[in-house]
């Protein structure tokens, strides 16, 4: 389980939007898992079980608190000189916007995005962890990635949003 911690932390970071809140979530999940280790069935995936515990705790927290941490302002552009500096700064800002975009996604889209695009799960595995059909995974993921792309590059006028194939795609 210790070997899994970096991945659990990444998952929690993406769900909560901050490493501190994420670590609280990891801690809560590990404590719960350790106290219920007997409930884990040998032969099943330990990490899927852990992700499910974490997901459950997180959803409980979201529902009971309905409080979100205030958003951290984007870094004001510093005095980094040179083109490389600017590009690195732009890349960092893009990633900050990505994090905000993920935080703004509906819970169910955020979970799917985190499992598939951040933790690298297959659609089938994500469907098993979340207990939904694969088709649901696919459509949530498409919506989440569209949104994320658009927010990530919102200030870069040169980059067009993702086009739509269907006329009424909302």
């Amino acid at each position, binding site marked *: 389980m210790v070997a*899994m911690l970096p991945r659990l932390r990444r998952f929690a970071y993406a769900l909560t939007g901050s490493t501190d809140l994420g670590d609280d979530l990891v801690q809560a999940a590990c404590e719960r898992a*350790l106290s219920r280790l007997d409930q884990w069935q040998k032969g099943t995936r*330990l990490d899927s079980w852990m992700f499910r515990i974490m997901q459950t705790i997180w959803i409980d927290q979201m529902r009971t608190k309905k409080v979100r941490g205030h958003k951290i302002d984007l870094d004001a552009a510093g005095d980094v000189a040179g083109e490389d500096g600017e590009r690195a700064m732009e890349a960092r800002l893009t*990633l900050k916007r990505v994090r905000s975009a993920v935080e703004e996604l509906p819970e169910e889209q955020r979970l799917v995005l985190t499992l598939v695009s951040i933790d*690298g799960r297959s659609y089938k*595995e994500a469907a098993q962890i979340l207990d939904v059909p694969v088709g649901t995974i*696919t459509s949530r*993921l498409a919506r989440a990635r569209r949104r994320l792309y658009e927010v990530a590059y919102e200030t870069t006028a040169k980059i067009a949003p993702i*086009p739509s194939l269907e006329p009424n795609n909302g």
Partner: protein
Amino acid sequence: MVKLNDEVLIAYSDGELDEKTAAEVEAALKDDPVAREIVHKFQEAARLAGEAFDDPMQEEVPERLLKLFEEPQSEEAAPDQSNITDLSQIRAARETKRHTNATAFEEPGTVRRFALPLAASLALIIGIGGGLGLSNFTTSSAPEVIAAGTIPQSSVLHAALERTPSLQSLEEVSGDGLTRNQIEPLLSFVDTNDRHCREYRITSSKVTGSQDLTGVACRGGDGAWTQQIAVVQEIPANGSYSPASGQANSALEGFLNEIMKDEPLDEEAEALLLDSGWQ
């Protein structure tokens, strides 16, 4: 003909379609620049998401989390069997086999860079780009060992580890067509944590020369492969390679001996695992 929509395109961009559908999508994409753009942007969004939350994979795990596991859980003590397997004979047998059933393979040259230390917990991963496999891998200089983590399930390396028998290889060509990667699992074994692990080699060829990465990855219960160690060697284009460095080999060998539980799996045992999806 398959109808292109967001669901199909996202599954395509994640490598989630079956071969037949994927081929249909590929054909349809040829005449549909808008759909191509969507695929590209979906992939870009996935890359961004992965990058945005990558810090925990590169940091030390905070003490407070590690503390949770400090009290010894009353599990059986880990077997400390440091039995040293002599891999040289196994390797020699493998090399013979390779040369009989495959095209000639360049011997690695001077050690260019070297991923250490040899702690069993070490998890390094070479920069493997999301959808396109190894696009970050080959540069004119030594590849960067950038972050710890799992090998992306959409990568060719993952596919090779998952399904390709040892000493057979998969090939991929980079998006720009300039780099050819040959990915070849070398051997399979069970480690001291009862995980299935494989040693593999990626030979990355460009006009300017090639690079050769030998790594070890282990498969977690979730089906994800995590790289444990990698040794990178550079092979100049002029063919003036020197024999493989003893230092690099002994480091890799030492590592294998440290984590290998028994002898490497034989062909039959490996074939069974490949067939059953490593169950």
